């Protein structure tokens, strides 16, 4: 072989780059995250798990459009059950530890919401406000390296 040194260096670099993920995960076993918090609560999600895993982002996107632009706040699930289209009042209730920081409140019947007039600047999250870092959302998104932009608008702390 001619230019042995250079060719072999090149091959070693090539091999190193191509097998990089193998070296980095050598001896590591990572279990995929589960929706632990919701599972511990034993709550059923609004749709079945497989649908939610694949389509929750579409659903949330549709909710956003419907709530913000059309004022339609009630979601009728495929099994006929009705839910409020709300991240804090519906999703996070089961998927995060802590409590709703309280800037939105449901009315007694839980469906036809009557929202208080809220001055956002005056909202003081309580000590037990949702802990997003430990939420099901956060852990799963961390694993998949997808950054959700929910918190861009939803004020959490």
């Amino acid at each position, binding site marked *: *072989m*001619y*230019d*042995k040194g250079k*060719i072999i260096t*090149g*091959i070693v670099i*090539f*091999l190193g780059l*191509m*097998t990089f*993920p*193998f070296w*980095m*995960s*050598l001896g*590591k*076993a*990572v279990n*995929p*995250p589960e929706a632990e918090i919701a599972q511990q609560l034993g709550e059923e999600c609004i749709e079945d798990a*497989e649908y939610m*895993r*694949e*389509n929750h*982002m*579409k659903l*949330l*996107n549709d909710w*956003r*459009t419907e709530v913000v632009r059309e004022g339609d706040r009630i979601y009728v699930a495929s099994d006929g059950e009705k839910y409020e289209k709300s991240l804090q009042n519906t999703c996070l209730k089961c998927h995060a530890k802590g409590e709703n920081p309280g800037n939105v409140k449901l009315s007694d019947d839980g469906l036809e919401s009557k929202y208080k007039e809220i001055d956002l600047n005056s909202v003081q999250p309580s000590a037990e406000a949702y802990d997003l870092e430990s939420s099901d959302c956060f852990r*799963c998104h*961390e*694993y*998949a*390296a*997808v*950054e*959700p*932009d*929910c918190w861009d608008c939803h004020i959490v702390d």
Partner: protein
Amino acid sequence: MGIGFSLLIAIVLVLVALLGTSIGLNALFAVVIPYLAFSIFLVGFIARIVKWGRSPVPFRIPTTCGQQKSLDWIKHNEIENPSTKMGVVGRMLLEILCFRSLFRNTRMELREGNKLVFIWEKWLWLAGLLFHWSFFIILFRHLRLFMEPVPSLVELVTTLDGFFGFGMHSLFLTDAFILVAVTYLFIRRVVIPHVKYVSLPADYFPLFLIFGIALSGVLMKYVYRVDMIAVKELTLGLVTFNPVVPQGIGAIFYVHLFLVCVLFMYFPFSKLMHMGGVFLSPTRNLPNDSRAKRHVNPWNYPVKFRTYEEYEDEFRKFMKAMGLPVEKDDSKEKS
């Protein structure tokens, strides 16, 4: 003919993946074929490089397009006509990262009967550059599926790539670029008669294959969603040699994965080897210094030869007897 044949093969490959997963061969498509494909890729790639490494390059054959290093008062172009190794490194970097030589591309045409004109033509360079960089960035983004925790550089690139969004979805620019660029590269091959004339199935097939990969990936991201957590469980299982076949990943994923595997397997046997070959192009990777240095042909074999001196020593007296001139005259020395 070439186009139809290549397209047919690409379609058959998609159908194979769809059929295979529909009859429950998920383990084959999720574990066996990926390992096989990656092994073929690595071994085949290295074998091809070693084979190329065994071919001698007896002559300095850099093709240059700048002033060679000469007298001090003549301006030397070190990048286009390198005289040192550093110059070569600069030239190769420009070639590999920016496709310098493709940038020089022009189109020749006869105008007004017999006037030969050269026309500005950067579209091939632009599409080529977009295509290769998009492909690289997409590949790099996919590292998020193969590493846990995900390196922050991968996340940064993903964020930058997905800067534009619609609704709450990010739209990856590279996804759009690669589809547009591959389409352009294909249309160019079909529409320009003399490019079509030199195009073979080996040229069309990679285009269809890569288009298929990009399209299935785009469909998977934007239309037919799959469970990403299950996908990452599968891919992490592959790199940690603990292969698992999670249930409930959509067929579109298997189509995507199978096409990628075919690309990996096909790679070492195809023109795609220009990925390694570009580093070995003797017209680019040699300094143009043959006027300054003597380069001996590496396969020169030691020839037995005789100097004129030895020849004259043997035949001197005959030569003198015949009146031929000699360089060393013994009789004069003696006297």
